[in-house]
């Protein structure tokens, strides 16, 4: 009788141990994003945390290469500066007029770049006014806890302090953004557009 009880206590302690020991424990939130029964790559998932402390995202780049933007979807925290280098020998004219951040970068040659500070939350649709097939999205979120799903739809939000959060999920082409509540004890997070 004692051994099963002890095992349960130890298991519970191991899951909650970082929180209990540090008082501000953090876990990695693993999840999957699916749409129509298949993986939903480039899905952006974030947790509401407007008062969270600053967290360095490093240098953030939206490259213009091979007449395409790379990556196709980018997620940044409000206030992040994104570099837009031109890595093609032709000129591009990057602009964003809808929602989010409005800007027009003009022309600049290969090997040079121009920065843009995304200072308000929301979705910015990025285009090139010279090459109509170039398109990208920058999702600016008021939180340091975010991730972009990989090709298999898997994502990881690292170092999330224990607690309960409202989560959001967005992907290009979806009619609506998904939202819900996630608590650290829920374990993984499954996002699904039907």
């Amino acid at each position: 009788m004692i051994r099963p009880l002890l095992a349960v206590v130890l298991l519970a302690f191991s899951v909650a141990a970082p929180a209990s020991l540090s008082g501000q424990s953090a876990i990695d939130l693993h999840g999957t994003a699916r749409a129509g029964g298949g993986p939903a790559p480039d899905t952006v998932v974030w947790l509401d945390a407007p008062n969270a402390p600053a967290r360095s995202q490093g240098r953030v780049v939206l490259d213009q290469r091979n007449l395409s933007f790379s990556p196709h979807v980018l997620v940044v925290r409000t206030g992040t500066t994104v570099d837009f280098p031109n890595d093609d020998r032709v000129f591009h004219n990057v602009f964003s007029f809808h929602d989010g951040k409005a800007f027009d970068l003009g022309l600049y040659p290969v090997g040079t770049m121009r920065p843009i500070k995304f200072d308000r939350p929301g979705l910015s649709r990025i285009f090139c006014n010279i090459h109509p097939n170039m398109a990208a999205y920058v999702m600016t979120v008021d939180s340091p806890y975010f991730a972009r799903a990989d090709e298999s739809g898997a994502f990881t939000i690292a170092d999330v302090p224990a607690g309960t959060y409202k989560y959001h999920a967005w992907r290009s082409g979806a009619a609506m953004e998904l939202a819900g509540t996630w608590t650290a004890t829920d374990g993984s997070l499954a996002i699904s557009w039907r």
Partner: protein
Amino acid sequence: MKTIALAACVVCLTGTPIAHAQSMTTEAVVSAGASTDEVSAIGAQLRAFGDVMSGVRFFGEAAWAKSSNDDNDFMGSAYPYNGRVQIIEAYAERTFRPGEALVSIRGGRFRTPFGIYSASDHAYSGFLRPPFFRYDEHEAVSNNFLEHGADLVVGVPRLTLETALGAPADVGTAVRRSGLDAVFRLQGYYGPFIAGVSHMRTSSLKSAEVEGRADFSGLDLRWSHNGIQARGEWMTGHPFAGATTHGWYADTFVHLVGMGPVTAVARVEQFEREEAGESEEEPARRQVIGVRIRLPRALTLNVDVVHRMGSVEAEESRPTTLDVGLTWSVRPHK
């Protein structure tokens, strides 16, 4: 010249391990249009481009287009409208960044790097006709000039020298004789300005009555700020001994916040040809105003009003015409 092109390709490929992350994008473009100039045209291009190996990129483009009037420049801004399937560009390219420097080598078949020369600068950019001096029939620097050879860019991003050595491999009706080509272009970039100086020494057109070399020099300038772009080129040269062609154009593109999918365009230009020191006719002048509108479903609509003055050609054409073109562009594979 094939040797030069081959050598450039070898340089591009030398020492590059096969990358795990190769990529290829294909792109298809179909355009159709009609003008009150009593001409209609349809064209298509298929492109494939991407990374073939680590650091090495490729670009290939084939085009077909047909016009109801081969002597009219409607829709001929960057491709020949002669009813034949043709390879336009096919090259490999590698760019190195040693420190702050920029070195880029290209080998294969590519557009002649004179002035504002890339296809995307001219094709369906809002203007459905090429500038006068970039039209096949005007014995100047045609947008359908191509090179078989090697192209080298050296410098720093703010100041580069581009040198192309090769042989003419033109498409369209203005085709140069075979021979060695040399094209030089110096480009500087400062703030909103990009300026270039170009010089080309090449063979004369096959259609020229007199054989001999041709040479052209030009200046180009671009300025862009907050959704407004201005650009222009001035060119002068000798298509063959005893003849001189010179001309210029200035373009404006306006795409401000609030204009949404609409870009307004305007062009003024002039072109003149002299032989034995005398102008053959009044300079040709033309003004264009128009719009390019991005529509849903990958469609783009171009509408231009063109007004001509001077030159025999203008007298033979309507002085004012309305040009309309619709372009559908998709990437089926990425």
